[in-house]
């Protein structure tokens, strides 16, 4: 099973990387819709709510098909709003699928993220159910197919005293109570979606529920254009004594129908539960073994000044500020290991280097830089690449990229700015920070913090004394090595025009991060 999962993850990661590359070329990383797939589901959901409310005004449970035909032919903009409702539901499902595949490919399903994953699976199922009930509302041939199939499944459960399927055999006309129940479900399920969405993002700080404004407007405009240009029609009314012929069928919401129809209802339940069970178990199936599991972040109370920066920056709300327990006054950061995903972003937040996952704190990073410099010894013409090992055009996989030495990091948002300073002061001609496009940060917000720490003075900021002309950030998706190459070549040319870099004899960036003597003595 683990081998299959690894193969699946690798395959989906490579496919996504390629698609991301194409989309970045077309729209730029800011508006790449693949990076905003979760937010596009929310956008489609809002469109569904608004258009659905309009349609609800004209829908009649006593004459479902006639009222839908009326909406399409007589109601003002009815045909377009119906189409908009249909197409938004299709886009929601496709976007949800892309979003889920991305989370899976990036291994973002286990540990504290399991809640988001499992509620995501539930969201997906509720979307499918909502589409199902929506199609039944229309009461055309497709509706008949879907309703009869659903009834067949329900009859296999020992719940109903009378088989529900008998409602669809044609002995009697369909009872309005059926359409009432179906409408009730179609309205209640979106309430479930809202509730599940709240749970879905409950462990995320500052969840991005909507895409950037330009993408949001573009997505809605495209849906409107498609609805007007290619409106849906009205299929023939369901005839209970007819076998559905050639019908316009939604293969997104009804993909399962051709598979389930030949199976006994018991098998359908069994296979359905198996598929949902496997999906819900992905957090367990993708969890690294205990030895390879990255450890949660730890606060070294000795260095923590209680500045709250890590508490604000943690994208997973895993840090709380609590009273100090070391006899000193004030507050200290405390990490909840049950919520920490070990992204390392707090290591980059903390000026005194008092927090971070073991082995990846600011201090640990400086250790690595020293070892790196001993080994590489970059000269005044050399650009050092500090590359995130997730995306970054795959640069972090090499020891040298286009002859530039590479220092791989686990997330560029976890890089402490002292590392950049150290490299510059050690005489490197320049430092090229290669990060994933911000909306594709595997840790949600890391790249944005890196940019803010280097250029906008956000704590722990890159010190004024570091020549910004020797520091550059480039965003590159996994399949964009050419972007890294272009940035590197351009930067090389610029650095050549600068005064020759010189190495300092003694670099001691930690000294200013040490605890003042007095308090160190207090700590004992």
């Amino acid at each position, binding site marked *: 099973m683990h081998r299959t999962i690894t193969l699946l993850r690798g395959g989906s990661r490579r496919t996504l990387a390629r698609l991301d590359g194409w989309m970045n070329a077309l*729209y730029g990383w800011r508006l790449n819709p693949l990076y905003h797939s979760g937010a596009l589901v929310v956008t489609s959901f809002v469109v569904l709510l608004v258009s659905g409310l309009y349609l609800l005004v004209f829908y009649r449970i006593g004459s479902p098909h006639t009222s839908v035909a009326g909406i399409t032919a007589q109601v003002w903009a009815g045909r377009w709003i119906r189409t908009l409702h249909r197409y938004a539901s299709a886009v929601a499902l496709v976007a949800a699928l892309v979003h889920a595949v991305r989370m899976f490919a990036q291994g973002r399903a286990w540990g504290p993220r399991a809640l988001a994953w499992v509620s995501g699976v539930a969201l997906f199922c509720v979307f499918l159910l909502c589409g199902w009930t929506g199609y039944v509302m229309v009461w055309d041939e497709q509706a008949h197919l879907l309703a009869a199939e659903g009834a067949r499944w329900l009859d296999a459960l020992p719940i109903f005293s009378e088989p529900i399927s008998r409602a669809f*055999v044609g002995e009697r006309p369909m009872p309005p109570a059926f359409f009432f129940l179906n409408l009730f479900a179609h309205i209640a399920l979106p309430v479930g979606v809202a509730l599940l969405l709240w749970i879905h993002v409950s462990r995320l700080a500052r969840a991005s529920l909507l895409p950037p404004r330009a993408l949001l407007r573009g997505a809605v405009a495209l849906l409107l254009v498609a609805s007007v240009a290619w409106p849906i029609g009205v299929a023939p009314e369901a005839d209970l004594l007819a*076998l559905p012929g050639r019908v316009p069928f939604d293969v997104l919401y009804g993909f399962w129908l051709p598979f389930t129809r030949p199976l006994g209802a018991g098998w359908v339940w069994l296979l359905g539960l198996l598929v949902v069970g496997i999906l819900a178990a992905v957090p367990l199936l993708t969890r690294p073994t205990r030895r390879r599991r990255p450890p949660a972040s730890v606060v070294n109370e000795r260095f923590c000044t209680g500045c709250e920066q890590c508490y604000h920056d943690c994208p997973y709300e895993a840090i709380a500020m609590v009273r100090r327990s070391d006899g000193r006054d004030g507050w200290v950061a405390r990490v909840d290991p049950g919520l920490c995903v070990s992204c390392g972003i707090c290591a980059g937040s903390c000026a005194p280097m008092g927090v971070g996952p073991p082995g990846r704190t600011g201090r640990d990073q400086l250790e690595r830089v020293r070892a790196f410099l001993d080994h590489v010894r970059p000269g005044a013409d050399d650009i050092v690449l500090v590359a995130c090992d997730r995306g970054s055009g795959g640069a972090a996989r090499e020891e040298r990229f286009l002859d530039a030495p590479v220092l791989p990091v686990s997330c560029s948002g976890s890089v402490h700015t002292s590392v950049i300073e150290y490299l510059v002061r050690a005489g490197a001609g320049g430092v090229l920070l290669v990060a994933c496009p911000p909306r594709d940060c595997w840790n949600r917000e890391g790249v944005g913090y890196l940019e803010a720490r280097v250029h906008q003075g956000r704590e722990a900021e890159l010190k004024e004394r570091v020549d910004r002309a020797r520091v550059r950030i480039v965003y590159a998706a996994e399949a964009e090595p050419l972007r890294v190459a272009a940035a590197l070549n351009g930067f090389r040319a610029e650095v050549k025009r600068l005064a020759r870099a010189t190495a300092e004899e003694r670099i001691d960036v930690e000294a200013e991060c040490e605890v003042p003597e007095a308090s160190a003595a207090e700590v004992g």
Partner: protein
Amino acid sequence: MTARTPVGVAVALGLVAGTAFLSRVPLSLRGPDESSLRLSWRLDPVSVASCRPRTEEELARLPTHMRTPTVCSGGTLPYSLTVAVDGRELIRDTVVASGARADRPMYVFRELGLDPGPRALDVAYLPLSGGGAQLPPGAPSLEWRGTVTAISGRVVLVTLDTAGRSLEVR
């Protein structure tokens, strides 16, 4: 606005149109020459229970809330369902009353594929007396024998007539 904008807009439109198409693919979920025979009816169960009053001792032995005055054994009558099309038997089955205690109505709901054209149909739904025992009065026996014309894409429905006494074909 860059040189790539028109391509980007065209690709986005294409993606939305593709997704929209997936929501309305013309699909045929049956063969060109398919018809079907559907049997569907509901009958009240026929009780074959024999009941006797409980003796004083039996009543005394039972907890207060279980002291029903009569005790019954037996249950409801099972039925046999046979269906033959053009002389070929396609269904031979026993139907029992529904419910955990088999005291709820009997439901028949079957669907079979049928080749279009005139078909000799023979449906029998008969009580199973079990060892030649006397059938209770009022146990219905339902039979339908005749020719039906199966039309491609249509269902031949065998069900109870409005009076609920005999089978009819619709």
